[in-house]
């Protein structure tokens, strides 16, 4: 299977600012890849290099088999672009603008269906200057998909939207990917990445810290579960079973383990032996993507402080 996007060693400098420090990434056809990262991590810079809007300082990229720097109109016709922010044709209505953009493409989607799909049916004939921020974002999305592209770039498509608006946009993206289309989106919402993406790339300070499925991200940290229980009077001061070490604070004992099932069995037997027929307050939790992401960002922050 050919890749829709291949980026190799992409760097970008803005004067003294190193926005990208060597990013390698491959996005397969039909894949949804979410770039997750805090503000200023370099997401927009990276995406706009792939869109042909910016030139990398070094490195090379191929998007639908073409170097973005040399992409022509035929190449653009196969792409959908939703910029992080762009101006609006304030005097016109969502329907008018979508129809206008549709006229640029060889095989556009039906304009009214697109306007309806992004949830603007009611506002289709309102002037854009009177739309809310969320409604304008839907117009952006309509303009991004109306050309029926093979690959769509979405730079923070749902930032600033209310929960319902976000879900609606997710729905549009899902409909779109169900047709076998490729999506590269950026976000700083973890749930968005988990909901939409086949793979997530965590980008921090211009480096791709990690790429993998939402389950894989975090690797080793992810493999450690947290087992905790309340330390009842019966359990106080008792020696734990072999091979288990807990840290106790505030009457709650916690241990980190790669095999939480075994640990729970051992602990239950041990508690029984101490006269507790049930381990009080037992819980087993796996770190969420959010925990891991925050750990990664935190680690890089600490590292930055020492630089």
């Amino acid at each position: 299977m050919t890749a829709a996007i291949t980026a190799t060693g992409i760097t970008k400098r803005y004067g003294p600012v190193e926005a990208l420090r060597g990013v390698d990434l491959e996005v397969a056809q039909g894949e949804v890849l979410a770039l997750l990262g805090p503000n200023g991590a370099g997401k927009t810079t990276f995406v706009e290099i792939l869109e042909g809007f910016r030139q990398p300082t070094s490195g090379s990229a191929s998007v639908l088999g073409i170097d973005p720097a040399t992409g022509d109109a035929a190449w653009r016709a196969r792409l959908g672009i939703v910029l992080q922010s762009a101006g609006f044709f304030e005097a016109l209505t969502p329907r008018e603008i979508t129809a206008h953009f549709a006229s640029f493409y060889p095989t556009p989607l039906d304009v009214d269906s697109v306007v309806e799909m992004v949830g603007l049916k009611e506002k289709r004939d309102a002037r854009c200057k009177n739309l809310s921020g969320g409604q304008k974002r839907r117009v952006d999305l309509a303009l991004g998909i109306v050309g029926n592209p093979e690959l769509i770039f979405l730079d923070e498509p749902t930032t600033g939207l209310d929960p319902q608006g976000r879900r609606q946009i997710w729905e549009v993206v899902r409909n779109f990917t169900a047709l076998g289309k490729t999506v590269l989106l950026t976000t700083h919402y973890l749930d968005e990445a988990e909901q939409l993406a086949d793979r997530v790339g965590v980008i921090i300070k211009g480096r791709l810290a990690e790429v993998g499925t939402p389950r894989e991200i975090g690797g080793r940290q992810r493999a450690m579960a947290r087992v905790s229980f309340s330390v009842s009077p019966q359990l106080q001061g008792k020696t734990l079973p072999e091979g288990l070490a807990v840290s106790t604070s505030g009457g709650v004992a916690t241990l980190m383990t790669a095999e939480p099932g075994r640990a729970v069995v051992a602990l239950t037997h041990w508690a029984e032996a101490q006269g507790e027929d049930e381990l009080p307050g037992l819980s087993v939790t796996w770190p969420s993507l959010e925990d891991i992401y925050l750990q990664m960002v935190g680690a890089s922050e600490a590292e930055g402080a020492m630089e």
Partner: protein
Amino acid sequence: MTATIANPAFRPNAPGRLVRLSFERTRFELQTFFRTPEQVFFTFLLPVLFVLIFSTIFSGAIDGPPGAEPVQFAQYFVPGMIATGVVSATFASLAMTVAMEQHEGLLRRLSGTPLPRSAYFAGKVGLALVTSFLDVVLILYNEVPSGLKAVASIFPLKWMVQGFRYVFLPEWVAQDDYGGGWQVEQVFLVLFAWFVASFLLARFFFRWNREQA
């Protein structure tokens, strides 16, 4: 999984497509233009207003060689006004809108699509052609409305001109043009009234942004 195959039938620079998109862009530009009141005002109303005022203030005629018809001042001004209108409809608004569209990121939005640059500029030229044609028609239509002196004398321009003439021109011109003196007191009174009135109007109708209007 769908294979990625570029649409082989799509030729972005086919002449038919360029023509179609040039017309589509012109239509879009006109639609945008006519929904932007400031642009319509400065492109159409201003030149027409000037013709009206000028032609009523500067009455009189330029005498030609013996036998030839004298040329009315009002008529004399019209070509200049038309040129002004056309320049504002073409150079000024074209340069201004392109700069504005760039500033607002509209150009970026368009440049992410397969719209050819030539069609974008064809749309600008189309808009300029249509609006300057309308400008010319409007100015000609409004030419030399006789008996509008009374209307013009309401506007401050007539009085400003009169005041400056008083400073720069000899007394006999006043005899010719104003049937006697320069009416300096009246000039002062009218201009002062305009100053007060426009200050008050501005104070009451000014809004920091357009929405509150």
